[in-house]
Structures are given as C-alpha cells and as structure tokens.
C-alpha cells in the first residue's frame, strides 16, 4: 500500500514549481495562482473546481514547502477547499471553550461559542477583519459551496476581491465520541496531512541544497563531500526525507480510503514532520556556520519546519484521539 503520484499530479507540481520560482512576493504569488487557476485545484468538481485528490495534495503541498510559500496560502488554496468537501450535518450545541495555547488571540475566547470556530480573516484594502464564529464547514460553505447558486465565476470573483485570508481554528474540549469530535478530527487530519506534505517539500529542499553545497565547499584541499563524516550526515538526511515522505503519503492514503482515523493519521504526520525537522538540523550541520545566518536560506527552512511541527502538535493537543486502539494501528502494518 503506497501512494501513487499520478502523471497529472507530477505535471501540476512542475507547473506550480515554475510559478513559485518566478514570483517570490506572497501577494504576487497569490495573484498568479488565481490567474492561472490553481485556486480551483482542490475545489470540488460540483462547485466548479477540479476536485483534485490525495495524489495532488501530496505533490502540491510539497511544492509549497519547497518554495517557502507559507501557511497562509497553504490554508487558502489547499486546506479550505478540502475542508469544504465535508457535508455531514452541522452540530450546533454551544460548548464552553477550553483555554488553548493558540498563538493568535482571535477575540473569541470569552464568548459563548460552538464546538469549533473558524477565524476567517478577509482583509481588503481597508484591512478590516471579519470574524465568522461558526464551525469550519459552515464558514467555508458560503464561500465555496453555497448551494447550486454558487458557481465557478463566483469563486473567481471572491478570490479576486480579497487580498488574503487566514485560517485558524479554536478548538474546544470535546467528548471523544461526539459527532462534533469526529468532525473536528477529520478537519484536524486534513490540516495535519497538508502540513506534513508541505514539510516533505522543505526536507527535499534542504537535501538538494546540502548535496549541492557539499560538492562545492572545499576544506583541507577537497570538497567536503569527500569526507565520510559528511557523507554519513548526507545519508541520514536522505533517510529523513524518504521516511518523512513515506509517512506523509501513508497518511494521505488513510484519509482517502477512510480506513483508519485520526490516531493513525496523527501518529504518521507527527512522525513525518519530526523527520523534516531532523532533516533541517542535519542540513545546518552539513553547511556549517553559514547556515546559521539570516542571509542563507537553509536556516529559514528550520524555522519553517519548527513552526510546522508546532502547528501540528497544537492540533493534536486540542483534538481528542479517537477510539482507535494500538492493536488496530498495529494491524494496519500487516494489512493490504
């Protein structure tokens, strides 16, 4: 059981990589994504999008990580449309929010609230914030899936009339078996997987940089890749990249097949992102002091990876595990 990256996904990945290579400013990138139709990639087909699936998610999110595109666009272009695919009934019982260590104060903490809230900030030229205190699905649906009236041109219009958006979820103490908890776990799984796949792109980027650098940098009269100590660091780095990829892709498969739930996806994604962080640390060790400077890019991947791990751990801390037992996860190892 492994994820097959389709030819189509590879083609999209290459086009996207070319786009990100040309544009380095976030706003320009966002506009170019919209101009070239990438914002429709994960929008369901019935809502006028391309309905891309797991293979594309894995390939595209990795390009985001590789090119340091940032969580904002990852959420807007990938996570929001995927979250919007969920059509299960809304759960609207008010619950008392649990204090969580969320890095942004979204102003909702002390209000009576629903089981999960989306802070959806639409900042126009006037930079006004609009908070939508509703469950994620309900908040996203008006934007992308608001019944048959909503069509492709309206999606275009929406993207073209906003300058950026930001997604955060305030998570609350949920009983493990409630349907609200199940929904939350599903959203959590999508976000975790997108971040894990994004991390794979970061890890691949630092591997590429390290291989190149170690073949150019000379010490003691030879390139540093001639030293076995450096070769072994490179090998460890390559192992981190490959097993981060394998973990993240396995999580994509579980999501697609709906075979195992949050506990397994959580374990796989945390495993993947931890290896991404390890890859970044190894890359710094291979590069030496230059990698610890603001000027050089390798250290910035470490920051991205650390933030990605914090994001993932936050989601995991806030969402209750499902009833999946260790035996059930173990059984997956010997399944088809």
């Amino acid at each position, binding site marked *: 059981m492994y994820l097959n990256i389709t030819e189509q996904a590879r083609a999209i990945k290459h086009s996207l990589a070319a786009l990100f290579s040309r544009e380095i400013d976030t706003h320009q990138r966002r506009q170019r994504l919209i101009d070239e139709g990438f914002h429709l990639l994960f929008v369901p087909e019935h809502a006028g999008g391309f309905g891309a699936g797991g293979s594309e998610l894995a390939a595209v999110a990795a390009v985001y990580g590789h090119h340091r595109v940032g969580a904002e666009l990852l959420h807007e272009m990938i996570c929001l449309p995927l979250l919007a695919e969920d059509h299960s009934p809304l759960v609207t019982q008010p619950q008392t929010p649990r204090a969580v260590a969320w890095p942004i104060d979204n102003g909702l903490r002390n209000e009576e609230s629903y089981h999960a809230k989306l802070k959806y900030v639409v900042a126009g030229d006037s930079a006004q914030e609009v908070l939508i205190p509703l469950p994620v699905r309900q908040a996203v649906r008006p934007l992308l899936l608001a019944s048959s009236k909503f069509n492709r041109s309206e999606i275009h219009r929406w993207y073209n009339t906003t300058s950026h958006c930001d997604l955060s979820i305030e998570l609350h103490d949920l009983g493990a078996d409630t349907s609200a908890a199940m929904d939350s776990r599903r959203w959590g799984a999508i976000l975790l997987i997108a971040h894990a796949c994004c991390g794979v792109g970061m890890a691949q980027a630092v591997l590429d940089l390290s291989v190149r650098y170690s073949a150019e940098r000379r010490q003691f009269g030879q390139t540093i890749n001639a030293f076995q100590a450096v070769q072994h660091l490179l*090998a460890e780095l390559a192992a981190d990249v490959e097993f981060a990829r394998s973990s993240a892709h396995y999580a994509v498969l579980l999501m697609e097949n709906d075979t195992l739930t949050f506990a397994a996806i959580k374990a796989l994604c945390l495993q993947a992102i931890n290896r991404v962080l390890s890859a970044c640390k190894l890359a710094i060790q291979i590069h030496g002091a230059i990698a610890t400077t603001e000027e050089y890019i390798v250290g910035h991947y470490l920051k991205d990876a650390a933030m990605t791990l914090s994001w993932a751990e936050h989601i995991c801390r806030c969402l209750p595990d499902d009833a999946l037992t260790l035996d059930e996860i173990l059984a997956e190892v010997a399944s088809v």
Partner: protein
Amino acid sequence: MTNRNSLVQFRSEVRTFLANNLSENMRRSCLQQASIFSDFDAASQWQKILADRGWGAPAWPVEYGGTGWSAEQYIVFQQECARADTPQPFPLGLQMLGPILMRFGSPEQKARFLPSIVSGEDVWCQGFSEPNAGSDLAALSTKAHKEGGDYVINGTKIWTSFAHRANRMFLLARTSSESARQTGISFFLVDDLRANGITITPIVSLDGEVEQCQVFFDNLRLPASALVGKEGDGWEITKALLKEERGGYLYYLAAYRQLKRLRALVDATPDCVADHHYRQCFSRLTARALSLKSLELRVVAQDDSAPESSASLCKLEGTRLSQDIDELARYCCGLQFGQTSQAEYSGLERDALEGISRHYLNNRAATLYGGSSQIQKTLIARSLQR
C-alpha cells in the same frame, strides 16, 4: 498485477492454509525468537509443509519450483505469515543463493541444487566474511588454487550463520592475486559441510546462544563443477547477491512481528497497558513501521518513485527501528528484563519475556550484518552524489 477480488480470495486461501497447518509449537517458537532467524527446527519443519503445498519458494518463477505469484500475492502471503506467527524459512538458500543460481548457475547446478532448496532438504550457509575482511569484503584471503581438475581451498570464514546446522555453503575464495582485488575472487558451492578439510567452531553470542560459527578450510577439495560462473566472476555475483539480501527482506513485517510480541507481553501486564510512555512510544514505532512499509512496497512493486538507494535506506531504517522496538520492550519488561529463568511466569508471557530479553542482545548485530549501517550510509551518500 493481481486485481483486488482475486487478492481477497487469495488472502482467504492463505489464511485457511495457515490455520490448518501451523502448529501451536511453531507459533510458540516465534514468541521465543531471539534474532532474525526462526528456531532452526521449526523453520525446517515449516519449509517442508510449505513445499508440500507448492509454496516452498513464494518469490521464485514456476520453472524453478516457485509459485509464480505476482508481487501483490507475495506481499499478501508474507503479511498473512506474519499475522499468523509462522516460522520464517531459512533465507540463505531461498532469498540469496536461489536467485543467484537462476542467473549465474550452470544448467547442472540449477538442476542439482534448486529443487532441494525449495523442498527444505538442503540448508545453505554463507561463507563471505573473514577475520580481516568484514565490511571490506574484497580484502578476503581464503585461497582456491587449481590442482589437477579440482580446486583446493585454504583459509577461514567467520560470522557464518548456522554453519553448525547447515549442510551446504556458498563461499568466496581468491583464485588470483595478480589482478585487482575484486577481479581475483571466485564464487564456489560446497556441497558437503561435513567433508574432510572443514572444521566448524561455534561462536557463543551475547544472548548465550549459538548462531554464528567460524569455519576453517584445510586443503578442502572441490570439483571444478563447484565454481559458479567463471573464475574471477565472484565479485559481480556477490554484488547481485547482496542486492537480493538487502532488497528482498521486508523489515516492516519483522517490525510488525516484534511489536505484536510486545503487545502480547503488555496485555498480560496490566500496569503497562495504560502506561503513557509505553503508549506514546508504541504509537511512534508503529508509525515508523508504516512508513517503512510504504517504501518497501514501492520497492517490491518496482515503482519508479522509490529512490535508487532504497535497499540501503530500508536496511538502515529497518534495523534501527528493530533496535528501538527492543528498547521499548526492555522498558516494558521492567525488572524481569534479562532474567534467565522466568519460572514464576507461564505460557505466552514467559515465552515473550525470554524472547524479548534475548532479542535485545542478539539484535545488536542487526546494524552490523548484511552491510553495517556505516556501509549503508556510504552507499546512500554515493547515490546522492551521482
């Protein structure tokens, strides 16, 4: 490619066969397993049962007595064996020598040796490493010189797994010292390990058991027909063989067997079941096994997304994972870890405790044999630089 329905049917057939043929003693031997090798007697017995069913060589083509299964069928079979706790047939003949003989052996060698590997009558061991030729295998100094129509072998091999139980050996010996180190090596088949000129000395491992031996050759005479390929082909054959060794083993299923044994122990130890550290570590180790699975299945399916150095990556990660599982198992054993007698325990719990303690020690060799972790890293780094 086998379609999904046929695979479901095939899985059910395998499951039924295992349920009807696997004895309780064989299953117990798996709980006590202390290394990558199953109990010798249980493995031999199981190989014969598989051969009677026509499944003696699951990965071989039909013309050589194999099953001719697809890659998917092979995986399903291995998964079901792991779930059922079957012994693992001795791998040196089936996974290593067999494919090499199919590729490099003469028609006579194939006809003589392949059927008895499948039936389980012959057990092969590998004569590669020497006291001064471990990771640097090309430094080997065992010599084979021509005398009349025969080759005469002199020298010694070490770390030879199960030489004391096997009846045949494939070995590397130097037939020329004039050319480059690698080109002077040839590949031989020793068809009787009890022949005059061979002395086998067992080596006791850290866990107190004997798996490894040192083998001495003192004017051992081999007929010319014992040579595989031509003189000097040994290094090329060896590279192909090591590729089989590193690429043919499914580390994720070995990890699965280990994790399953750990669960069996923990289930019998109520204090451990709810232990937070145990649960977290177990979950992480299982996730690592899943990621290993994802790569190994790509390798088996020859998917082009698997990197060139996949075999080395799997060996590096698989053996490291196995040792990390040992560490968690040690934690779960508590003060019972390492006790030689588990008299106060019975049945499954005692088997698991004994197996875990011995495995912990024996498995230090996992990152050394079959190309140490350092060798694997060097191979991975080379592939990155190409």
